[in-house]
């Protein structure tokens, strides 16, 4: 953890250089390709077979994903 804290500080120090730039009137870019909203026909399609999806789960049970209780063991 200590090693990583030092590494992250070093990285942030480098990243802080963007603080020197004059960016007040610059719009942010979250996405580079200009896209229009794409719509598709709303047609029903079969969903994934439940058993195929559950087959990948670490602990499937009764057709669902089983997880430990949110409460600590009593």
């Amino acid at each position, binding site marked *: 953890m200590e090693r*990583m804290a030092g590494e992250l500080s070093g990285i942030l120090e480098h990243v802080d250089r963007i603080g020197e730039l004059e960016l007040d009137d610059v719009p942010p870019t979250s996405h580079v390709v200009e896209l229009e909203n794409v719509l598709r026909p709303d047609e029903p399609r079969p969903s994934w077979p439940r058993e195929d999806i559950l087959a990948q*789960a*670490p602990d499937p049970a009764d057709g669902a994903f089983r997880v*430990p*209780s949110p409460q600590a063991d009593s």
Partner: protein
Amino acid sequence: MVEMRELSVADAAAGIASGEISREEYFEAWRGAAAGDELGAYLWQSDAAAAGLPIAVKDIFCTEGVPTTAGSRILEGYRPPYTATAVRRLAEAGFQVLGKTNMDEFAMGSSNENSAFGPVRNPWDRERVPGGSSGGSAAAVGGGLAPCAIGTDTGGSIRQPAALCGIVGLKPTYGAISRYGMIAFASSLDQCGPLTRDVTDAALLLDALQGRDPCDSTSVGIEGGVKPPSRESLEGLHFAVPAELAHDAIESGVRAVFESTLKRIEGLGGEIAEVPLTHAEHGISAYYVIAPAEASANLARYDGVRYGMRAEELGDLISMYESTRAEGFGDEVKRRIMLGTYALSSGYYEAYYGRAQKVRTKIAGDYASAFSSFDFVVTPTSPSVAFGLGEKVDDPLAMYMNDFFTVPMSLAGIPAISIPAGLAEPDGGGPQLPVGFQIAAPAFGEQRLLETAYALEQEIGFDARPGSVSDG
């Protein structure tokens, strides 16, 4: 058999189509080569009957019923119920997966040393890295273990390993190829692309891969597809060299190869001038905010509930999440999740993520203005030739600097190709190693980019192979 493997993919495909080459024999020749992998390039190899042109696929692409790990423990044992669109399109074009290739965990890395399943070795010198994150794909093609491969590039992960392994690597325009089924790292930057021995094969693969996909709303494809390049002259074309390059930290051997390649461009009739790309130097800073921020959101899905591994030690639900992630993720992934969540946290959001997005606008603007008077921007692909295994693992910032020349194009979303331009010794001496030359073009300018890369490739005539060069 060796002769068959010397053929380009385009020539082999033509030979198979005309009946001169047996499809089965061709595939088996490559299967045999892949089976002899001593580089750690493959994580899985196919034993299916030969039915297509062999291709190595980075283990970040979901393949139905076939292990897909993205180089991470957390996905150990995962067999996706579906296949990525890119891989499906390759199959429709006659390709068959030869194997899945090793990679930096979740594509985070520039040396392939961040794989949970061991490093990949550079075919030119096994004590050196192949680059990353598509290091397995690059080493497989460069080392003669696959005729061609696909990888993904978020900040240089196709181009940099291609450069370090002496092959061609293309990052297409963001949106050219579907990302459906490609395990997400940084969704606004990730893009699939080919790693091949020559430019013609890169065009062949890109044509098969590109296209709009209803499963990825950001995919648009390349209008008109991609044709085999044939250009011979660079007459009338204008190439921009970033003015800042003169001061950048570049190995002397890399700089020499870069400058001799500029002379070749002029010899072919191209015109070269310097142009300021003033914000490119801030690319690394912006990238190492934006990519970790997106990654920290994307990786939240690995929670030990629906797929992949779950830690043995349980307790309540929250401690199950925590111990699964503690055991399942490697150091670099943890580092980036911490960076990303920090950059997105309330109070720091504007200073980091907000500003980084603005720098992204500035970088894209620099390129847009360069392309108003130039056709291409050229740089070395990587500041150095392949470095030693372990050399930079303890210094993440030094590792990030490998991406200095490749990150700006990713932030701008434009296509860029790396072609092998020659060999050079590392600073301080060592063997002769490949040097990549990077060419970037405006968005969706892939055809012109490939034509230019092809003309330059013919002029360079790079034919060195690992083992054919004696240690210097």
